[in-house]
C-alpha cells in the first residue's frame, strides 16, 4: 500500500526516523524506499573512514548535511598505533567542497585534522554550524581562528580531549561581533591562554549559549563574570577554581552561581582549591552529570561532601582517590545513577589501594539503574562480580580494568572467569565488554554462550589457547569490533571463519600468535577486507618470512580497497 503514496509522503514519514541504523533498514525494503531514503538522508555516520570514499558517500547521499567520521582504531588512545597511521579528514573536506555539498555539521573522532582542513571548512560551507572534534590531532590555534572568523552561523564548537598546538595564537578573539549564534563552546582541552576580554564579550552576545566549558587558563573572576552574563547555561566546565572562601571574589562567585538555576552538567575544576567547593553546593541538587575526573585536587571529605549534595546524579566520572568509602557515599546518595566511570589517579603507582571490588559492590547495591561502567581498580573478586551481576542486570557497557592485567581473584586465587561469566549471563542487553585480570578460555566460552547482544569486546593478557577466540567468533552474532592484545591466539583462530570479519567493522590483534602467513591468507581469501600489518621496529624491510609473528594487525571491511595514504610503518597485504 505504501508504494502508492507519493514520494513526498514517504519522505515525510522517513523524517521521523532519525537513527542511522533504522534508516539503513528502511533503505533495504525496496528500490523506491531506497531511492527516497537516500535523497532525504541528512545525517550520515561512518564508523571507519576507510570503509568508504567521500565520492561514494555523495553519490548515495547527495543531500547530506551532517557527517560523522571515525579514524584511528580504538587502541590508538593507548599509544599502540603510530601517530602517522592515517585517518586524515582533509580528503573528505576537499571532495565535499568540490561537489557543492551544503555541509552543516562535522563530528570527528580519532582523526587527523589539519589547519588546512579547518580553513577549507570555514571558507566553503556557508551554513556550517557545528564542529565536534574528539581525540583528534593535527591542528593548531590557526585552524580554530579560521572557524571562528569565517563560520557566520556557528552554533557549536566542541573540542574534547584533542591534542592541539595552541600555545601560540589567539583564536577566540577571531569571533566577529556579528557572531551571536553560539549554543555550545567547549575548549577545556586547550592548554594555552585565551583572550579573556574577548571571551566575556562573546558570551555576552550569545543569548542561546547553553554549554560552556573553559580551559585551565580562565581564572575565577572571569568565571564569575561569565556566569553573570549567561545564567541560562545548562552545561558548565570550570577552568580554574582557586579562591579564598572568605574573599569578596568568593562571595561574588556564590551569587553568580546561584543565578544559574539551569545547570545540569558540571565538569572541569582543572585547577582547584578544595576549600571553596561550598560555593557550588546550591547547584548540586539539579546536577545530572558530574565529571571530576580532571580534578585530583578534590578528594577525601571535600569530595564526599560534594557528592552528598548531588541526589539527582545520573552520570558520574571521578578519580579513584574517592576510595571504596567514597563510593559508598555515592551508593547511598545517587539513587538515579546510570553511568559511573572511575579513573586511576596514579596508574603506574605501586600498591596504591584506591578502589577495590568493595566499592563496586556498594555502588551496585545502591544504584540499581546502573547500566554503564568503566572501573579502574586494584583488584576484583569473582564473588563481587557475581553480586554486581545480580544487583545490576541492566548493564549495556561493562568495562573493568584491573591495574595489574593478570591479577587473579586475590581471595581465592582463581581466574575471574566465573565473575565475568555471571556478568554476561545476567546482563542480557550487554553491548560492550572489556575484560581484565587473570582469565582462561573459560570466560570466552561464557561470552560466546551468553553475550548475544555484544557488539564490542576488548581483551588483553587473557586466554590459554585459540579456543578462546573461537568461542567468541562463533557465539557473538552481533559482534562488530574485536580488539585483542597479548593473547595466545594464532592462525587457527584467525582463519577458522574469515567470512565473519565481513560482518564486523574491524579486528585488532597485537602481540598475539598470528603470523604473516596467516594474515596473508586472510587477505587473499577476503578481498573485501583491508589487512594492515603495523611494524614500528627499526626494521624497514618487510622481508619477513611467513612464519614470522606479526606485531600488530588491524583488519577492517571496506568497499574501496586499499587506502593510498598509509605510512611506511603500515603494510597493507
Amino acid at each position, binding site marked *: 500500500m505504501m508504494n502508492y503514496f507519493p514520494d513526498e509522503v514517504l519522505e515525510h514519514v522517513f523524517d521521523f526516523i532519525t537513527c542511522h541504523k533504522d534508516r539503513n533498514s528502511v533503505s533495504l525494503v525496496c528500490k523506491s524506499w531506497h531511492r527516497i531514503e537516500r535523497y532525504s538522508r541528512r545525517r550520515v555516520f561512518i564508523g571507519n573512514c576507510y570503509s568508504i570514499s567521500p565520492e561514494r558517500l555523495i553519490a548515495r547521499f547527495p543531500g547530506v548535511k551532517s557527517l560523522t567520521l571515525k579514524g584511528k582504531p580504538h587502541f590508538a588512545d593507548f599509544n599502540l598505533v603510530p601517530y602517522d597511521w592515517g585517518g586524515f579528514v582533509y580528503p573528505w573536506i576537499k571532495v565535499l567542497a568540490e561537489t557543492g555539498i551544503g555541509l552543516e555539521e562535522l563530528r570527528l573522532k580519532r582523526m587527523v585534522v589539519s589547519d588546512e582542513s579547518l580553513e577549507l571548512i570555514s571558507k566553503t560551507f556557508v551554513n556550517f554550524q557545528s564542529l565536534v572534534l574528539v581525540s583528534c590531532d593535527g591542528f593548531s590555534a590557526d585552524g580554530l581562528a579560521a572557524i571562528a572568523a569565517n563560520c557566520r552561523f556557528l552554533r557549536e564548537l566542541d573540542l574534547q580531549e584533542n591534542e592541539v598546538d595552541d600555545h601560540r595564537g589567539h583564536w577566540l578573539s577571531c569571533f566577529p561581533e556579528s557572531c551571536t549564534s553560539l549554543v555550545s563552546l567547549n575548549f577545556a582541552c586547550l592548554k594555552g591562554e585565551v583572550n579573556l576580554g574577548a571571551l566575556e564579550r562573546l558570551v555576552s552576545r550569545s543569548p542561546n549559549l547553553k554549554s560552556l566549558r573553559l580551559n585551565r587558563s580562565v581564572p575565577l573572576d572571569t568565571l564569575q563574570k561569565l556566569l553573570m552574563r549567561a545564567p541560562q547555561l545548562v552545561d558548565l566546565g570550570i577552568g580554574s577554581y582557586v579562591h579564598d572562601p572568605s574573599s569578596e571574589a568568593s562571595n561574588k562567585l556564590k551569587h553568580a552561581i546561584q543565578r544559574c538555576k539551569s545547570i545540569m552538567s558540571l565538569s572541569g575544576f582543572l585547577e582547584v582549591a578544595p576549600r571553596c567547593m561550598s560555593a557550588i553546593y546550591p547547584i548540586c541538587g539539579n546536577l545530572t552529570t558530574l565529571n571530576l575526573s580532571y580534578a585530583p585536587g578534590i578528594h577525601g571529605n571535600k569530595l564526599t561532601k560534594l557528592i552528598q549534595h548531588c541526589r539527582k546524579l545520573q552520570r558520574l566520572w571521578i578519580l579513584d582517590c574517592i576510595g571504596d568509602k567514597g563510593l559508598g557515599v555515592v551508593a547511598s546518595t545517587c539513587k538515579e545513577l546510570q553511568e559511573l566511570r572511575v579513573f586511576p589517579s596514579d596508574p603506574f603507582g605501586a600498591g596504591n589501594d584506591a578502589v577495590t571490588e568493595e566499592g563496586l559492590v556498594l555502588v551496585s547495591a545502591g544504584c540499581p539503574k546502573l547500566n554503564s561502567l568503566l572501573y579502574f581498580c586494584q583488584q576484583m573478586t569473582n564473588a563481587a562480580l557475581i553480586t554486581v551481576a545480580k544487583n545490576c542486570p541492566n548493564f549495556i557497557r561493562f568495562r573493568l580494568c584491573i591495574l595489574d592485567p593478570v591479577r587473579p581473584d586475590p581471595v581465592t586465587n582463581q581466574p575471574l572467569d566465573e565473575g565475568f561469566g555471571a556478568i554476561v549471563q545476567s546482563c542480557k542487553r550487554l553491548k560492550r565488554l572489556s575484560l581484565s585480570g587473570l582469565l582462561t578460555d573459560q570466560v570466552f566460552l561464557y561470552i560466546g554462550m551468553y553475550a548475544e547482544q555484544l557488539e564490542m569486546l576488548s581483551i588483553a593478557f587473557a586466554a*590459554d589457547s*585459540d579456543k578462546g577466540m573461537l568461542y567468541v567468533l562463533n557465539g557473538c552474532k552481533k559482534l562488530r569490533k574485536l580488539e585483542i592484545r597479548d593473547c595466545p591466539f594464532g592462525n587457527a583462530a584467525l582463519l577458522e571463519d574469515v567470512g565473519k570479519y565481513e560482518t564486523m567493522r574491524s579486528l585488532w590483534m597485537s602481540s598475539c600468535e598470528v603470523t604473516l602467513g596467516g594474515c596473508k591468507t586472510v587477505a587473499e581469501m577476503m578481498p573485501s577486507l583491508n589487512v594492515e600489518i603495523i611494524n614500528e621496529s627499526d626494521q624497514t624491510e618487510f622481508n619477513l618470512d611467513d612464519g614470522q609473528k606479526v606485531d600488530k594487525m588491524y583488519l577492517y571491511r571496506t568497499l574501496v580497497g586499499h587506502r593510498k595514504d598509509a605510512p611506511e610503518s603500515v603494510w597493507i597485504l
Partner: protein
Amino acid sequence: MSSENGKRLPETDAAGLNYEATELTLGLPGKSRVTSDGGARVGSKRGFSETVDLSLGEKKDSNKLGQTQTQSQIDAREAAKSPGSKAQVVGWPPVRGYAKRGKKSCKYVKVAVDGAPYLRKVDLDMYNTYQQLLTSLEDMFSCFTIRNFLNEKKMEQVNGIEYVPTYEDKDGDWMLVGDVPWQMFAESCKRIRLMKNTETAELAPRTPPKWSRRS
C-alpha cells in the same frame, strides 16, 4: 574461601594446577603456563621482556605540526619514583589523557641561557613535544640559535654561536635534552640551561638523541 596468607598466592592449589605462572612477580607470566587439561599449549602470554618496551626512547616523533601522542605511553617515569615497582607495559593501563588527569599544577621551570643577563620561565605543561619547547625557547631568546639535532642541516646560525639544550633532573644531574620520551622529561626536569656550544664541543654526542632520529 581465602587462603591463610591473605593476598599471597600459594605455589599450587588443591586441584594440582600450576600456579607458578600466576605468582606475583615483577613481570607478567612467562611461557611456562600449562593449560588445565594438561594438553599442548597452543600459545602463551608474552613474556615480560617482550612486552615491556624497554627502549623508551623509541617513541613516535613529532609530525610537521609538532604533535605527538604524548599521554599514556607507559614509561618508567613512575618506576623511577617508587623503587621496587614493576616496569611498565606499553599501553597499559588503557587510560587516555592520564597526563592531564594526574597533574596537580602547572610545571614552570627556569630557563638559563649562557650569556643572557636574566633567566626566563617556561611552563612545561604547555608543550607536548621537544620541538614545541625548542621553538618556544628560540622565540624567547631570539638572538641565539639553539642546536637542534632534528634539523641540523637546516639550522641557520644567526651569530655563529650554537647552544645545546640541557636540563637538571630530579637527581641533580645535568642531562642532554632529548634522550627520553617527552613525558618522562617533563616530569623530571627541574630547570633548563642552554649551554654555549664551545663548552660542550667535546661533549657533543655523535649519536643524536633518539627522539630526533625520525623526522
